């Protein structure tokens, strides 16, 4: 497809250590269109952050790449040398991290941290300064000239997230990986950041991969999403479709376990049990153990990713049973 900026096919990555093999990413495929926000949704430990790190190949030494391909603008990223990757990291695909306190350097000025992104671009000092001021303006930090000279600890949580985004955007990437950008923030600040990223996407024409567990944030930001469970994508499609008509039991359970916005006090439908350990995945469907629709086939065989609607896929044997399932919203 022409307008896909990123195509991931059959990606597999395991963390191998002396004692165990953690199957963090098990055969996942997805594509991100130009200018869209793509959400990777799932619970902690489902492998969503690992996907992000694999895309930029920022993996620890014990991570073993087990196959698949990552095509960015038609170019294969797997197997590139470190030097070639460095041209892509930051310039083409940039990442903003969740832990703001550790991801930003506490002992250098904000200015220096932004300038670092310009290394390799032939720019004069004045140009760099002007660009940095513009960046801070872009992410909505008031009096940028003064704040450029400050250190990270002088900023509040929301402002830090803005700086993080400014640094990620410094080299004008075509794609931003945002790892839980609003998780540590308060509701009102979260709202500001959501709106900031949404508007930046439009003005800069970027594509964004958003990693989050928060369905509210997903609904406000993402055009399409992939729901991950135990290292696999179990359902993918556009946000509206999945929120209104989920076709995978896990997605359905996830959506139903949220309290509704209408104030109803009906008992929440929780998913019993806990996700399986990634170092000891079952033979069949990894959700079978907790699934109310599960039959024998689910325990013995891995379900295929089936097309259940236009651009809507679900990795389940029993998608037919979910044809009338109710989502969070009604169309």
């Amino acid at each position, binding site marked *: 497809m022409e307008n896909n900026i990123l195509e991931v096919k059959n990606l597999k990555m395991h963390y191998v250590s002396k004692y165990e093999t953690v199957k963090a990413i098990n055969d996942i495929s997805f594509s991100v269109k130009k200018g869209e926000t793509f959400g990777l949704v799932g*619970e902690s430990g489902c492998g969503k952050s690992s996907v992000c790190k694999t895309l930029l190949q920022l993996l620890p030494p014990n991570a073993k790449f087990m196959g698949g391909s990552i095509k960015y603008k038609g170019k294969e990223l797997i197997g590139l040398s470190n030097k070639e990757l460095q041209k892509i990291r930051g310039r083409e695909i940039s990442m903003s991290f969740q832990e703001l306190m550790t991801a930003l350097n506490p002992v250098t000025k904000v200015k220096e941290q932004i300038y670092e992104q310009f290394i390799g671009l032939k720019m004069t000092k004045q140009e760099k300064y002007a660009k940095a001021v513009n960046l801070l303006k872009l992410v909505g930090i008031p009096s940028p000239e003064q704040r450029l000279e400050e250190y990270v600890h002088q900023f509040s949580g929301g402002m830090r997230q803005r700086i993080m985004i400014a640094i990620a955007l410094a080299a004008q990437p075509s794609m931003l990986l945002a790892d839980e950008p609003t998780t540590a923030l308060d*509701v009102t600040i979260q709202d500001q950041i959501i709106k900031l990223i949404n508007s930046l996407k439009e003005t800069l024409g970027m594509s964004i991969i958003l990693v989050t567990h*928060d369905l*509210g944030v997903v609904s406000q930001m993402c055009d399409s999403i992939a729901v991950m469970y135990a290292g696999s994508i179990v359902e993918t499609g556009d946000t509206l479709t999945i*929120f209104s008509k989920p076709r995978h039991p896990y997605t359905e359970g996830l959506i139903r376990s*949220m309290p509704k*916005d209408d104030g109803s006090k009906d008992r*929440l439908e*929780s998913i019993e049990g*806990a996700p399986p350990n990634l170092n000891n995945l079952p033979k069949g469907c990894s959700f079978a153990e907790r699934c109310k629709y599960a039959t024998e086939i689910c325990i013995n065989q891995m379900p295929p990713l089936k097309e259940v609607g236009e651009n809507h896929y679900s990795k389940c044997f029993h998608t037919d049973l979910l044809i009338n399932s109710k989502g969070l919203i009604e169309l």
Partner: protein
Amino acid sequence: MSEYTLKNNNSEVLLSVKHLRKEFPIKQTIFDIIQKKEKKKLTAVDDVSIDIYKGENLGIVGESGCGKTTFAKSAIQLYKPNSGEVFFEGIDITKVSRRELRKLCRNFQMIFQDPFSSLNPRMSVRDVLSEALTVHKIVEKSKVNTKIANLIDMVGLNIDQLDRFPGEFSGGQQQRIGIARALALNPKLIIADEPVSALDVSIQAQIINLIKDLQERLGITFIFISHDLRVVRYVTTRVVVMYLGKIIETADTEKLYRNPLHPYTKILLESNPNLDPRKREKKSLIEGEPPSPIDLPKGCRFCKRCKYAMDICHEKEPDLKEIRPGHKAACFKL
């Protein structure tokens, strides 16, 4: 909803907090002392008064640093409040001796945000529960095991997991252990401090259901502190909104969510990301961030961020007054 309203009006007060204030001193650096700067303090809870009724589930919402946890902890004397009174069954618990307090403490228990750090990593589930039961002699020695089995069953854990250590459980299970520990002392009030925010969505629902069930079965009063507005709406019967150490609005949950009065409450509720992807706003409703609780500005705490602010808002601090029956708010505009 109306059923709860009635209950609140009729039922008796369990804990009555009057003019509670808690300040934390800010450490001075050598330079501050040399320059003879005034000693600064952070006012976490500023003159808060509220009655907590028997059997209700009181939600406290607000952004981080608004003092919701400090308020709850100083109410049960986990932090020594700087001033104010807290009455429990007619006794002012801010004035009793330490020994007395320790006995009274049994009636107030807490559930913590981070389930792992709230459990002693070197004590098995059995140790945790039996300690609680034996120290306060809740049951006879011979019945401790029976009671433990009961508690474990009540929170939905399996009895063969009793001798495991906290590290061997998942987050949801750890939270269940924390709840069992709180229940062991037959408390009258449980403070749940963000009990589900460290848990995954699918596990959250399990714990929320458990808390609701327990409240219905045992009639324990809850103070439910959370920043998740959806969860608070689902769980609680009455809500208190706090902003920088003050209560700015309080009402029955549904009343407050359907008809918020204070401008801050309105913004807070609308900032909560809508679950409908079709309803996306372009602009954020509120600019800026809460001011620091050190050196608060004169006047209403919210005036700098409030679009309705008038002259008086910068001069005087509004009192919490009853706008409609059972619905109080602190704003001059009302």
